[in-house]
């Protein structure tokens, strides 16, 4: 059991950490600004744990865990929380699967009940598994309707040859067509155990009450030994890689992806500052950051690409991951501008940064932006709880209160060094979406 003081943001306060006898880790933080409570239940399982033949199983399992349990009829899983005005959701990504509810504080017992049921007693009715197969294929096809998303999938698959980060979280279509109910259920039973989970509760709650209620719901669930996980380390990339997708469409897209440091790497925070210099500070909260556009008009790539009229948008993406993932720069070519010109201008600006570094003014501005984003993205109990669970699942939650300090400590030399080391041609994959022919203005029939 440990309790640490936090720095001054809304997350000011104390995080209570406790591990139940079955290995379930509890993280509890009292925040009494609104009569609300949020629960997040995190599992250390994501698409990097999948093997060929069952790609997409983590995400499909997540869907099945909203389909009823021994003690919650299928049609009541969602309504149970919504009756309290609550919000519920879940997501799966490369390292993690997580479930959340936010509702009025008097729904806390129900939220914990749902999560305990989900951990141990989901049904996996064969008919529901079949019905969900087509829902997930529809989700995949909806994503493929978006050229940018399609290109992202191709770039990721090209950048990784060995590490399972290469396959999309939603899975490859053939696996979604062939996976069985037993594949799903076996995976569920293997990873949904208390000793592979973190339960986070934040809000207008009493810590002792939460501990008591959590113990009541989760203590009966037995731990099980987790078999060791085997991961391949992605070998060093030896040369630039390229992938071109040609399809009918209206607009051309470009992605430049560099192998990036994992969250625990010393390079991670300098890289985060570098991204803020290049494309504006997004912050560090996967759940909250995308809701507010980054301050990017004074950023390097915006100035070089958007303000010159070559691209209609630019964005940079660096997220905390357990293993080294990608730093991806995404550009949309302005109508009438060739991809070659966009690529040349983007690579030219990146090369300037790689060779000459950035300025101390840029670094200080980026750090101020990131510090402000830390405050802005801690504006709700849902966002605070997300960060604790996210970092505990990838590394340790104690990283969260250290982020502001780690950003402050980043130096100009570190940012320039990480640019010199990472933004090389041999470390990158370039993806192009080239519309194969112009789609004329459409008329209905």
């Amino acid at each position, binding site marked *: 059991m440990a309790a640490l003081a936090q720095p001054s943001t809304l997350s000011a306060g104390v995080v209570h950490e406790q591990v139940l006898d079955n290995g379930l880790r509890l993280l509890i933080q009292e925040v009494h600004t609104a009569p609300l409570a949020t629960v997040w239940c995190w599992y250390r399982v994501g698409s990097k744990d999948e093997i060929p033949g069952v790609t997409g199983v983590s995400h499909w399992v997540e869907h099945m865990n909203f389909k009823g349990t021994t003690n919650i009829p299928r049609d009541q899983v969602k*309504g149970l929380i*919504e009756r309290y005005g609550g919000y519920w959701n879940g997501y799966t990504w490369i390292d993690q699967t997580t479930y959340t509810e936010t509702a*009025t504080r008097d729904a806390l017992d129900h939220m914990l009940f749902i999560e305990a049921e989900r951990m141990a007693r989901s049904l996996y009715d064969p008919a529901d598994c079949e019905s969900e197969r087509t829902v997930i294929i529809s989700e995949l096809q909806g994503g*493929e309707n978006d050229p940018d998303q399609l290109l992202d999938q191709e770039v990721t698959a090209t950048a990784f040859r060995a590490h399972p980060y290469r396959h999309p979280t939603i899975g490859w279509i053939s696996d979604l067509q062939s996976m069985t109910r037993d594949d799903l259920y076996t995976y569920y039973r293997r990873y949904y155990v208390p000793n592979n989970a973190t339960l986070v509760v934040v809000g207008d709650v009493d810590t002792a009450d939460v501990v008591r209620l959590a113990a009541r719901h989760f203590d009966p669930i037995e731990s099980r030994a987790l078999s060791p996980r085997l991961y391949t380390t992605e070998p060093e990339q030896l040369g630039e890689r390229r992938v071109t997708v040609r399809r009918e469409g209206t607009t051309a897209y470009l992605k430049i992806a560099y192998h990036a440091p994992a969250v625990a790497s010393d390079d991670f925070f300098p890289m985060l500052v570098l991204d803020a210099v290049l494309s504006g500070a997004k912050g560090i909260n996967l759940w909250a950051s995308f809701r507010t556009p980054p301050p990017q008009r004074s950023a390097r790539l915006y100035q070089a690409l958007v303000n010159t009229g070559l691209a209609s948008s630019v964005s940079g993406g660096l997220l905390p991951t357990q293993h080294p993932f990608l730093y991806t720069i995404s550009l949309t070519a302005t109508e009438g501008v060739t991809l070659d010109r966009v690529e040349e201008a983007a690579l030219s600006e990146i090369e300037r940064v790689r060779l000459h570094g950035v300025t101390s003014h840029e670094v200080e501005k980026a750090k101020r932006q990131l510090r402000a984003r830390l405050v802005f993205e801690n504006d709700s109990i849902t966002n605070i709880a997300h960060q604790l669970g996210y970092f505990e699942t990838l590394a340790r939650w104690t990283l969260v209160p250290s982020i502001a300090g780690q950003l402050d400590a980043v130096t100009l030399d570190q940012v320039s060094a990480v640019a010199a080391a990472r933004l090389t041609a041999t470390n990158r994959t370039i993806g192009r979406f080239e519309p194969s022919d112009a789609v004329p203005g459409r008329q209905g029939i």
Partner: protein
Amino acid sequence: MSVAVAGLGPVRHVVANGVRVIAKATGVTPAVTIHVSAHVGSAADPPSLPGLAYFLSRMIDRGTQSMTADAVAETLEGRGVSLAASLTRHTLSLVCTCLVEDFDDVLRIMADCLTRPVFPESEIATRRGEMITFIRQDEDNPASVAMNGLMELLYGPDHPYGRRPRGTVAGADQINRAALVDFHARMIGPSSTVVTIVGDVVPAAAVAACESVFGDWQPHPVIEANLPSTSPVLERRSRIVPMMNKAQADIAYGFTSIARADPDYYACWLMNNVLGEYSLGGRLGDSIRERQGMAYYVLSSLDANVIPGPLAIRAGVAAGNVERALAAIDHEVEALATDGPTDKELLESKQYLIGSLPRTLETNASIAGFLQGLEYFGLGLDYDLRLPGLLQSVSRDQVHAAARRLLDPARAAVVVAGPYAGPAA
């Protein structure tokens, strides 16, 4: 159920020139959200220049009489602030969140952008290129194509609701600086501007700051958008837009609904919640996603506005399931109109909408947006306290009547966009 009993209790103040200010102190973070809305949107586009309001929204923060576009960006971004300009059919909004110590400076820049933009020629060509790219992206997006098609079917191509909010490529080509200057002068003024400020700031100080930065803005008459009334639709209309390069089809299916001021509003809101919102898509979600596994997303939304906006049902389905999905939508729409909601459905929807108030008013940004809505529709500063009672008092018969009034498959407008060319012969 815990519902705040004290309510938001915001402070409202009207500057002498007509700018309305609503402020609310919260202690959630050492930050402040500033939300400035001018009541002009794409519905005010002149027919000859579609997309003019959208173009203006892309230019409004690109240089003022006292600051260049780069200076605006550098000053805000040095403080970690990103200013978001957005446009609906009726409002142009500038929204940002800043640290409390930057509040006065940021508010001053926002006021400068709204009241004294200069629309520099050097920025116009770049923004035009962006705008045309966005329009072309919309043309390649089945969901946008379907929704734009639905609005055109419901309102007609000449009605402000029937035109695309971002306009057309031809329109973007014609918009010039003179058009932007003229539109800004005629459509944006103190009397149609509302500023909401929520965060770690004393309301009286927020009001004083607004007096300081907006006080010298000269009042002038503002022209309101001309919104012709719509004629009732008497027959079903369908449109198919084949996009054979796409992986799945998007369906937009809908009706014209009611105005926000309609006495049936709360009954219609609850009806829509039962139909397509509650518990991942209401009855539609239960049928099309949960029971038939046809779609990842299906939902309905109600836009009761200054005029009757659309009630739109949207879904993404495989091409082979389009007809089955349309049949399922027809069935659910007809069933709700015929039988109304069950007592249990109505109870659950009421519990959800009432219970969700504290959650939806948790952040500074969400409160600032809520305050804009209540000012725009004249709902009163105590609306958050009255809302539970308004919803609670709606009877099952009233919701049933709302369903009968709005839902009828024989009068639906239906658009399908995607890899689908129509029913097999």
